[in-house]
Structure formats: C-alpha cells, structure tokens
C-alpha cells in the first residue's frame, strides 16, 4: 500500500475528487495547507508598509491506495490538477506498512 500525498491548488479539489472517484478510489483525507515554492507569492502593502505573502493557500490530499492503483491514482490527480501554470503542486508517493479500518478491524488492502 502507498500513501499518495498530493499538494494541489485549492480550486482544483473538486475536479481531483471526481477524477479519483472515476478510477474507483473511495476515500481521501484533505488538509488546508500553505505552500512555498517557485510560485513566488505576492507583495502587498498594508498601511504603507510592504510585505510579502510567501505562503500560498494549497490543499493537501492524502489518499491511501493498494499498490496496483498507485500509478492510476497519480495519473488521475495529475490530470485533474494540472493548469500548466506555476504552482500546480507536487505528488509524493510514500510507503505504508499497514492499514487498519477502525470500524471493522480489517487490515491490509481491505482496510483502504
């Protein structure tokens, strides 16, 4: 199993969710985050003083999937989240040793 961790532009979340549903991924966990990268933020002025908003709003989507689904999952996210403009985000694939569904005590692939 892998944890596919995608950092995307917030307004793409709905499309990513739909793309994942289409390939049969039924669960995900979403966190509001701030991102810092090549997309450089903007300089604003507040009461005459400049400041930089470095950290831009992003959404992090954590999806646990079975090994065979990893490639499809990554592709689905990539397809849905891409605008082609800087700041589109990253996907990281992280190994999972074990998964448990709390409600049923199921473990392994069945828990996802």
């Amino acid at each position, binding site marked *: 199993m892998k944890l596919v961790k995608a950092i995307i532009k917030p307004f793409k979340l*709905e499309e990513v969710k739909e793309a994942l549903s289409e390939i049969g991924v039924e669960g995900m966990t979403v966190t*509001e985050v701030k991102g810092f990268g090549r997309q450089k933020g903007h300089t604003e002025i507040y009461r005459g003083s400049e400041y930089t908003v470095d950290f831009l709003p992003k959404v992090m989507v954590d999806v646990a999937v079975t090994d065979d689904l990893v490639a499809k999952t990554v592709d689905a996210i990539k397809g849905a989240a891409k605008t082609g403009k800087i700041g589109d985000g990253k996907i990281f694939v992280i190994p999972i040793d074990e998964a448990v569904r709390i409600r049923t005590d199921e473990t392994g692939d069945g828990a996802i």
Partner: protein
Amino acid sequence: MHLGFATLEAGMTQAKNTVNILVKNVFIISVGIITYLIYGFNAMYPGDFNGFFAFGSPVTMADYGGEIDITYGGTGLAMTAWTDFIFQAMFAATAATIVSGAVAERVKLGSFMIFAAVLVMFVYPITGSWQWGEGFLDAMGFYDFAGSSLVHGFGGFAALACVIVLGPRAGKYLAGGKIRPILGHSMPLATIGVFLLWLGWFGFNGGSVLSADPGEVSYVFVTTGVAAAAGALAALFVSWFVVKKPDLTMALNGILAGLVGITAGADAVTLYGSLLIGVISGVIVVFSILFFDKIKIDDPVGAISVHGVCGIWGTLAVAIFAKEGVEVSFVTQLIGTLAICAFAFVAAFIIFTILKVTIGVRVSAEEEIQGLDIGEHGQEAYPRFSLQPSNYQDSSD
C-alpha cells in the same frame, strides 16, 4: 436590544450552534411583537380585569387616537398608546429572550418556539397586569420602574425552571463533580452584544420615564450608566480576585447585572445608591454564576444570575436606596418580586414539562454533539472550509 441579546448569546456559545441561536432570536422578537398585538397588550392593561388574571383581545384601531387616557402604574401617561405598545412588546420579547440564552445549545427549536410564544402571549401579561395593569401589586404600592422583576426577574426564573426541566449540556458536568467549561466561540461578538444592550438600556430605562421631562430622563441616564459601570468594575475585580485572572465574560455579565439591578429604581434611588446597586450587582452575579454551576444548573450565558438573581436584588434595592421623597416599602418589594418570580418559575415549569412529555424539549445526543446548526437548520454559521471551488483563494498568476 435584541441584536444585543442575539450577539451576546451567539458569542458565548459554540460555533456549531450559532445559526440556531440567531434563528431563535429572530423568531422571539418577531413573535413577541405579533402575539402582543393580537392578544398580550390588551390582556396586560386594564379593562375587564379582575386584578389577578388577564384576558386579552387584539389591539384595534380604536385604541388609536393621539393621546391616550389610560393611567397605569400610578404614572400619568404622556406618550401615545402606540409608543407604549412597541415598548411593552419589546419588554415581553425580552423576557422570552432571557430564557433562550439559558437553554441554548440543547433545546429543540420547535418546542422552544411554542414555549416562547405561550410565555409572551399568556404568561407575561398576567404578571405584567399585576403592576402595570392596576393589579394587586400596584395597589400595594410595589415599585418597579422598568421591570427588574416584571421583565428580568420573570425571565430569569422562567429560565431557571426550563434549565431544571432540560438538564445540562452533555459533557459539562463530569463524574466526580468536575466541571468542564464549554467555551464561547467569539468574545468580540459577546462584547458587541453587551455594549449594544447597554445602549438599548438607556432607551428602555430612559423611555420608561413615559414622558419627555428632560430632568427625569437625564437623571435616569446617569443612574443607569453609573450602575452599569459599577457592575462591570465590581465583576471584573471580583473575578480577578476569585479566579486569579480578569475574566472578560464576567465583566460583561457585570455590566448587565448592574443594568438589571438599577432597572427597578432608576428614577427613584439616590445617585450613590445607583453606584452601590451596581457594585453589589457585580459582586452578586459572579458568585451566583459560580453557585449555579456548582449545583449543576447549566446556564451557558449566565442569564439566571444576571436577570433572575439581580432582578430580585434590584427590586429590593429600591427600598434600601430610595431618594428623598420616594416611599417604597421593603416588605412590599419583597412580596412583589417573589410573587412575580415564583409565578414565572411555576408557569414555565409547567409549560415546559408538558412540552417535555409530549413533543420533547431536547435534541438527540447525536445532534447535540454535531451541533444544532446542521441538525435543525442544515446551515453552518461560518462555512469557510466548505471546499467548493469558488470558496478558495488561488494566487496563480
């Protein structure tokens, strides 16, 4: 005025119940005006009235005609019946609003609506008529300028009855006597509420002079302002001393306590009387809130202490601090305030118990955890993280 109550109550409770609280307050003020129009006003004021119980009828155009000749509460009336109507309707709605704060975060919306309508329409005019409708309290010489007992004591003790019937919020009182505080979600909202109430009180008390005599009105402004300020300082310092940190919510309750305390005698007590009334109200309210929490009466906003307990205190205080020329008997005041509060308590207890055994008064445990906003209204107060595309900022170039 009701804006004040609505924002105070919303600020002192959890975000997940905010829509519910706002709807309740919109409802109460509205139903207060309407029921008062079609029944309550003419129930409360004299006419075919036996001195103890009142029957009402709709206000009609015949009641209109410039100056009105009804004389009530011993005060010659220098305002029109219409001003009086809107005033009294606000008072009536206030009584119900007080209850709303105490039962917040767990009461069923429908049941509360029925309760509030019945309270405003049928119960409040009865005690109101005892005094303002030339009833037996008026005959005894009872003095309650703008309703320490008739509005606030009434509301506070009705609230107490409801809280007893309803029980505390889930998770407030833990096994072993420990109390787990449930924090209000927005202190600015609560503060806005109290300041608006303070402002509104100038209107209530000033307006209750029922005339435009500038001497009277301005004296009432001063006693009202002084009592509120004294209540705030007293509660702030008492809470600082007792709980070690200056507690904003206690200071806010202290302002209201001072206001409730001065309401009965705003025109009748001495200047330094108003100062002392305010100070004592501020002290009382802190200990009263701690006391009710200890005996597991769960009142999220402190309404029972602020309105009920300080309402009684304020009524008695008129006799203690009466200025020269004002004759008020302590015993009469005591009888009057107890009669009113007891009646409110019993009536509310009966009505609310009937609702409890019939349609139920409490939301399910699930709904209480989830919040009444989703449960009863399907609406969140602050739907910020709703994850819809357009709810997002994006800073792509």
